[in-house]
């Protein structure tokens, strides 16, 4: 295969790191399903099939300065943004030390102020106006940052999607809206969700830049998000990007996807799985050797094992703590 990452300014080390984060997200996800089926955690919401877009996007942003408003499938994004495997496991076991919510929210409801990662809820797309507010505030203060928000294609039908995009367009704000189109809103397929060809076609209606890219390719994600970020920094306003992905798992651990799609369809999609195809790319260039791959898998497994163990043994929040932080508490 042709080396595509060099032209984008990436070293072999960079793309290996990119792959390692994608793989870590995947392996965490797989472990969560095992823990769920073993009765250790009540619920899983998955990232599988979307890691490439998430990690590629994160690499195009300034992870020391920019703000992210993720949604519940963004394992790859939050790991790339600085969340640790241990923190991910604490989140899924809903323990007191979970930095996202201390066990108050369901798993995958991210939020980490130290990392400039906004907290979000379960009613979808509410984070879009928040990301616009971050960009508006930064513009008022003269801070040169980008506000990056992600959501599914189901979310793109919500009123808040439109209101946020329109507001950002009117005020030419440095926001990147990235739709992770995984082809399903739980069971509802694309044809029943929207009548245009691409979500990114809507960009024109908001006076912004729009682009659809292969969501299985982290380098395509990087290129698209980089272009959007460059535009934002130049004062050219927001962008609407669409990562064409596929949700490889059921919606959640409580869903049975075989009631609305076929095994064959999922098997076909798996052939394009970004974690697999990017590994093939790295192998073909001799960057991911057998030895390196083994080391990487072992390192990830060790981290997940230790983190799972830690999170399982960690304490739940004190029941009395439910009364805290409804409002600001002095001291």
């Amino acid at each position: 295969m042709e080396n595509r990452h060099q032209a984008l300014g990436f070293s072999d080390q960079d793309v290996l790191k990119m792959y390692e984060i994608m793989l870590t997200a995947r392996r965490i996800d797989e472990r969560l399903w095992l823990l769920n089926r073993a009765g250790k955690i009540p619920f899983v919401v998955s990232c599988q099939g979307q890691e490439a877009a998430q990690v590629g996007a994160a690499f195009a942003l300034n992870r020391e300065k920019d703000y992210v408003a993720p949604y519940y499938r963004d394992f790859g994004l939050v790991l790339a943004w600085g969340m640790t495997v241990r923190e991910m496991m604490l989140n899924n076991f809903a323990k007191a030390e979970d930095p996202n919510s201390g066990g108050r929210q369901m798993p995958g409801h991210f939020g980490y102020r130290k990392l400039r990662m906004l907290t979000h809820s379960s009613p979808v797309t509410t984070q879009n106006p928040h990301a616009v507010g971050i960009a508006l505030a930064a513009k008022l203060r003269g801070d040169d940052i980008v506000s990056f928000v992600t959501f599914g294609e189901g979310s793109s039908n919500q009123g808040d999607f439109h209101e946020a995009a329109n507001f950002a367009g009117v005020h030419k704000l440095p926001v990147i809206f990235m739709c992770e189109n995984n082809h399903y809103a739980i069971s509802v397929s694309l044809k029943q969700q929207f009548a245009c060809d691409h979500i990114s076609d809507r960009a024109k209606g908001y006076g912004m830049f729009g682009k659809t890219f292969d969501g299985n390719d982290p380098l395509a994600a990087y290129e698209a998000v980089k272009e959007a970020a460059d535009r934002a920094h130049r004062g050219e306003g927001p962008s609407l990007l669409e990562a064409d992905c596929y949700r490889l798992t059921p919606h959640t651990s409580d869903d049975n996807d075989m009631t609305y799609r076929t095994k064959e369809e999922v098997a076909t999609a798996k052939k394009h799985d970004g974690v697999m195809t990017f590994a093939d790319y790295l192998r073909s260039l001799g960057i991911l050797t057998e030895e390196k791959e083994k080391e990487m898998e072992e390192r990830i497994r060790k981290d997940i094992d230790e983190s799972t163990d830690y999170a399982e043994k960690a304490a739940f929040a004190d029941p009395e703590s439910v009364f805290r932080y409804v409002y600001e508490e002095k001291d």
Partner: protein
Amino acid sequence: MAVISYIEAITQALKEEMERDENVFIMGEDVGKRGGVFQATKGLYEEFGQKRVIDTPLAESAIVGVGIGAAMYGMRPVAEMQFADFMLPATNQIISEAAKTRYRSNNDWSVPLTIRAPYGGGVHGGLYHSQSMEAIFANVPGLKIVMPSTPYDVKGLLKASIRDPDPVIFFEHKRAYRLIKGEVPDEEYVLPIGKADVKREGEDVTVITYGLAVHFALQAAEKLAAEGISTHVLDLQTVYPLDKETVIEAARKTGKVLLVTEDTKEGSVISEVAATIAENCLFDLDAPIRRLAAPDVPPMPYAAPLEKTCMLQPDQVEHAIRELAEF
């Protein structure tokens, strides 16, 4: 001390807070060049410019939602809903987001956002420019709901709302805007959110209310004083969370309690006040708790006679106090 109107108190509070803190900014429909459809932001666009007095697209969920994001960044946004009736598209942002951000993030993030909204009837506003919306938000922990009655309270409480570290809904009675005038000190002051205020001391009957109805109660009290009926008037000011201690104290003082709202009766803010008194003051009461509210029909029709039937009237308050006094 200067005498100013209710709406002038709003403008003054906004102006002074914007001068004091550069993080304070205003966003909403028509708040800029137009100065607001009621003129609450009059002159602020000229003084502070379009960066701090932002005319937004007509989209309430975005006005609140973008305000939440800006507040999370460290700003102090004041979001204007043109009419409280039009807040409903923003309800998800208010209830699911602003109210729960601190709690769900375990105190990591917070939303110091003020949402101003004109409410209330008696202005020929029909079904969608007259409503009282407080009950919709008054069982949402994480929110504070302020509903002042006088220019003095408006100014002190709006400043407190803007400085508050948590989201505050600030409901302004639109009929009070120009009808109610009052003295406001020249020097700077801020009033506490979460405190009810005794507007008149009395011995025979306690009236607990808020907003424009406070003035109806005070007028009635003045009139009834001539008949030898002494009325105690408590202004809730903050309708959520309730100042339960002061409510209980006021109920115990006379043992006869009239609760007044211009909202529809069932499930209203005063229903919660009634429950609080029932739970705590049973043996102090000399009469059943009485509630005076709008009928349980969609408030309120446009045609004058229909509106009058739905809108709380001062003489109703007077009659109710007299009846309780005679009980």
